[in-house]
């Protein structure tokens, strides 16, 4: 049976990862034989990457102070001042969350997942009363709930041998849907977070990659439809030791 003709919609959905795997393969085959379509698809992918390169800095930048200072010309509502101020506190609290690196510099090396995971780490680890939505005492419920929301069967690594106890987990908004964050803590109260998200693309397992954003180190890797990022404010060797343990448990 021959494949249905490739449409304009197919080309865009191919770029945006919106095709079912079978169709994705058919379009890939089409592109191998149609140079102009392949050029367009490549250009659109580059467009998407450049949009992220240029504008993703806004995701991790502290909400600027001038936003919540009255300028007289516009009425500033208390709620927004609260929101902006709280965001600023959350964002700058632990990590001094300002993006020092130039957008055009090393951004490309720090992928989306590392950035999002590092930010989620910086936002939630300082929480004293509500660091997680579901605590480790309800681990079974936690894993069932997050597996259901992410649409895949999740496993929670146990890091007691590495000196870290599970605190619990929470659901987060990810780039394309729900993501999960598991939090761990050692005897001194040092916290690590494991961020997990699902992607439409099935990827061959990647090696560990390391990224650092203002004191938060992240080891991240992709495995099938899942992407993982382990974040912590510990030194790199320690983080790698734990990342390795996580990987071993997820891939026995």
């Amino acid at each position: 049976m021959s494949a249905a003709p490739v449409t304009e919609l197919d080309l865009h959905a191919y770029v945006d990862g919106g095709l079912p795997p079978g169709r994705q393969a058919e379009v890939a085959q089409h592109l191998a034989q149609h140079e102009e379509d392949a050029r367009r698809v490549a250009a659109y992918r580059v467009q998407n990457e450049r949009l992220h390169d240029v504008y993703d800095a806004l995701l991790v930048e502290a909400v600027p102070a001038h936003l919540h200072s009255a300028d007289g010309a516009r009425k500033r509502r208390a709620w927004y001042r609260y929101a902006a101020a709280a965001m600023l506190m959350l964002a700058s609290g632990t990590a001094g969350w300002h993006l020092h690196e130039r957008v055009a510099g090393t951004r490309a090396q720090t992928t989306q997942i590392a950035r999002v995971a590092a930010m989620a780490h910086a936002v939630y680890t300082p929480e004293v009363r509500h660091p997680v939505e579901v605590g480790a005492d309800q681990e079974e419920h936690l894993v069932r709930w997050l597996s259901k929301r992410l649409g895949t069967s999740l496993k929670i690594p146990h890091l007691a041998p590495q000196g870290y106890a599970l605190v619990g987990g929470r659901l987060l908004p990810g780039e394309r849907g729900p993501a999960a964050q598991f939090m761990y803590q050692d005897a001194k109260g040092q916290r690590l977070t494991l961020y997990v998200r699902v992607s439409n693309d099935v990827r061959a397992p990647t090696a560990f990659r390391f990224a650092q954003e203002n004191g938060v180190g992240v080891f991240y890797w992709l495995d099938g439809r899942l992407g993982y990022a382990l974040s912590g404010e510990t030194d790199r060797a320690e983080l790698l030791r734990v990342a390795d343990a996580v990987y071993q448990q997820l891939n026995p």
Partner: protein
Amino acid sequence: MDQPVETFATRAMQYIPRLRRYARALTGDNSAADDLVQDALERALLKQALWREGTDLRAWLFTVMHNIFINQVRSAAANRLVPMDDVAADAFVDTSPVQATDRLEIRDLDAALQALPDDQRAVVLLVGLEQMTYDEAAKVLDVPIGTVMSRLSRGRERLRSLLQRTPETNPLKVVK
């Protein structure tokens, strides 16, 4: 338990960075973007009763912000230069061989985006930057999905031709 208002505000706050990212790319200007985000958050707070629990808050906030943007564009239209329409912009498309592009400077991408018609730029950004599905983008913009597709298609193609040109040979002056 938190008060309902606080819960909504806290949830909405999570999306401030994403709203700012989109607003910045959409308006091409930092302060215009922050004004737009602030207007959207104020409106969202006032209209929060209209948001239904269990539905996508991100999409709802983007819808609120987009509506404000459209109204601003419309009310400002009388005082602005008329945006270049499709035909005129196509006349500028350079057909000379493509030169290998170096890393794109921010202002180049900004400028190219600003050269797109507003509705095409919005779709290119919602899909390419915000990574919404076509369906989600259609809901945010309140247009049929077919319209999203045609705007995406024209927007990306326009952007491609704009970005392929080197600055020296670029005949299109874009106001920063």
